[in-house]
């Protein structure tokens, strides 16, 4: 095994792993409003501030809308900025999410993914982040607390990369990851500082034909995000799409660099393939459910069933080409959605994975499983049933129901 940097095993939950990563990443400003199941992140981080363990400016805001407004403003001045939210809090940020990505502010935010009301529910699903998939933020969904820690550190490099300059959301499943204690390998402060470096700025053309680093500075004034009329608005949106395209390469580069440093890698940074090379039936999912699916695959492989997993780690930018390549030889695919797109004939992940496979010369059968809403547990037995359904589809060459509800009482 390659030599990697010194690390220390600590028992932390997902939220604490986030706070630790932020503490080590030399963050200038944290502006946040607590909400379950994210609360531990901001509680833990305010402890660090109170104890003088960090010199971060901590802003207690009166709402999540204000929290994101403060983060955007701080980021625009050149600060490295972090915040965290979930569910209704993220929904309240909705307007500011677009302003932040539109202003190309590389804010990093952890989302302890939780259901949306009504009825009120504080438990895990992906409804909150999926509702923000078109907000111009990069979205990464982690499988375990270790990946949460690693992804937050990587997120600053991705967001602040000169070819990207976009905000990043790291999703950790509410309670399943946010509140569950795991052994996590923690890097030294110096290693993290060395990896995240200091924030860099592209040079931009400002008024009167002058060029300055892209940040608000009284000595070098510029106007960011003012009104753009129909003759220019479209052009700015096209730039954001280009940045997303660039992020696809940058996320892979950062994943490689991080792997060399720590010995840990998450697929290619975009997707992770598990026993997929010769798989005939495959599950596609995001987040912590991948752990359960892997355990089921190992069991099924013992009995000779060629089952595999494709975990989408980066959902925005959506790695459509990589997904098509990975699933090109598979016979049947079950896409799992932990949120609903009401009236949409299946969930968001299903729509996009199916779209990614459309141009393949031979397309696999693709069906959808909505699961785990409002924190409902998804057992290995249920995952086995999904693989069983896929086997039946391959045998009969027939799809009876396109969209299934896994673990729902009928």
């Amino acid at each position, binding site marked *: 095994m390659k030599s990697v940097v010194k690390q220390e095993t600590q028992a932390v939950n997902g939220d604490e792993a986030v706070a630790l990563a932020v503490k080590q990443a030399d963050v200038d400003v944290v502006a946040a409003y607590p909400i379950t199941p994210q609360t531990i992140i901001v509680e833990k981080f305010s402890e660090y501030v109170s104890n003088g363990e960090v010199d971060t400016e901590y802003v207690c805001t009166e709402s999540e809308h204000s929290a994101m407004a403060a983060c955007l403003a701080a980021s625009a001045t050149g600060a490295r900025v972090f915040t965290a939210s979930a569910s209704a809090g993220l929904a309240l940020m909705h307007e500011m999410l677009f302003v932040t990505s539109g202003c*190309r502010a590389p804010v990093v935010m952890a989302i302890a993914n939780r259901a949306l009301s009504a009825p009120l529910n504080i438990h895990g699903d992906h409804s909150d982040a999926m509702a923000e998939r078109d907000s111009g933020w990069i979205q990464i969904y982690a499988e375990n607390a270790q990946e949460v820690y690693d992804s937050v550190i990587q997120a600053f490099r991705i967001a602040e990369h000169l070819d990207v300059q976009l905000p990043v959301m790291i999703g950790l499943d509410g309670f399943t990851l946010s509140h569950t204690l795991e052994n996590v390998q923690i890097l030294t402060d110096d290693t993290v500082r060395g990896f995240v470096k200091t924030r860099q700025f*592209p040079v*931009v053309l400002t008024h009167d034909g002058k060029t300055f680093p892209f940040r608000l500075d009284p000595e070098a004034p510029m106007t960011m995000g003012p009104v*753009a009329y*129909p003759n220019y608005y479209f052009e*700015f949106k*096209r730039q954001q799409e280009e940045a997303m395209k660039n992020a696809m390469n940058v996320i892979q580069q950062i994943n490689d660099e991080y792997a060399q440093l720590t010995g840990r890698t998450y697929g290619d940074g975009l997707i992770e393939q598990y026993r997929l090379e010769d798989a005939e039936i495959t599950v596609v999912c995001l987040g912590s459910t991948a752990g359960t699916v892997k355990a089921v695959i190992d069991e099924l492989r013992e009995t000779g069933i060629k089952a595999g997993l494709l975990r989408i780690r980066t959902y925005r930018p959506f790695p459509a080409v990589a997904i098509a390549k990975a699933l090109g030889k598979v016979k049947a695919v079950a896409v799992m959605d932990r949120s609903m797109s009401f009236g949409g004939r299946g969930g968001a992940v299903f729509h996009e994975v199916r779209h990614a496979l459309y141009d393949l010369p031979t397309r696999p059968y693709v069906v959808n499983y909505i699961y785990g809403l409002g924190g409902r547990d998804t057992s290995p037995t249920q995952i086995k049933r999904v693989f069983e359904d896929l086997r039946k589809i391959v045998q009969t060459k027939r799809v009876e129901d396109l969209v299934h509800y896994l673990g729902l009482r009928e």
Partner: protein
Amino acid sequence: MNSKDKSWKEISPAGVCWKSSKTYLTGDWKSFTPDRDVKKCTKCLLCTIYCPDAVIHWNAEKDDIEFDMNFCKGCGICANECPTKAIVMKIA
């Protein structure tokens, strides 16, 4: 849109302005335009203070106020505030 508009590859990100607001003439937005009766005007200069676009200036050489109509949006605040009703708004 016209042929002088830049492509998305040529402009700064995040709507950063690459031109000064002085070159963006907002005077053509107006539906109404101020019309001053010099006989009624006492040169009290209240209009120079109230104008939200700093369109009305004191010109010492002329010993009079002057309007920069390149930036007058025709809001009518000057007419409303004028104590002698020297300014009235007319169709532009």
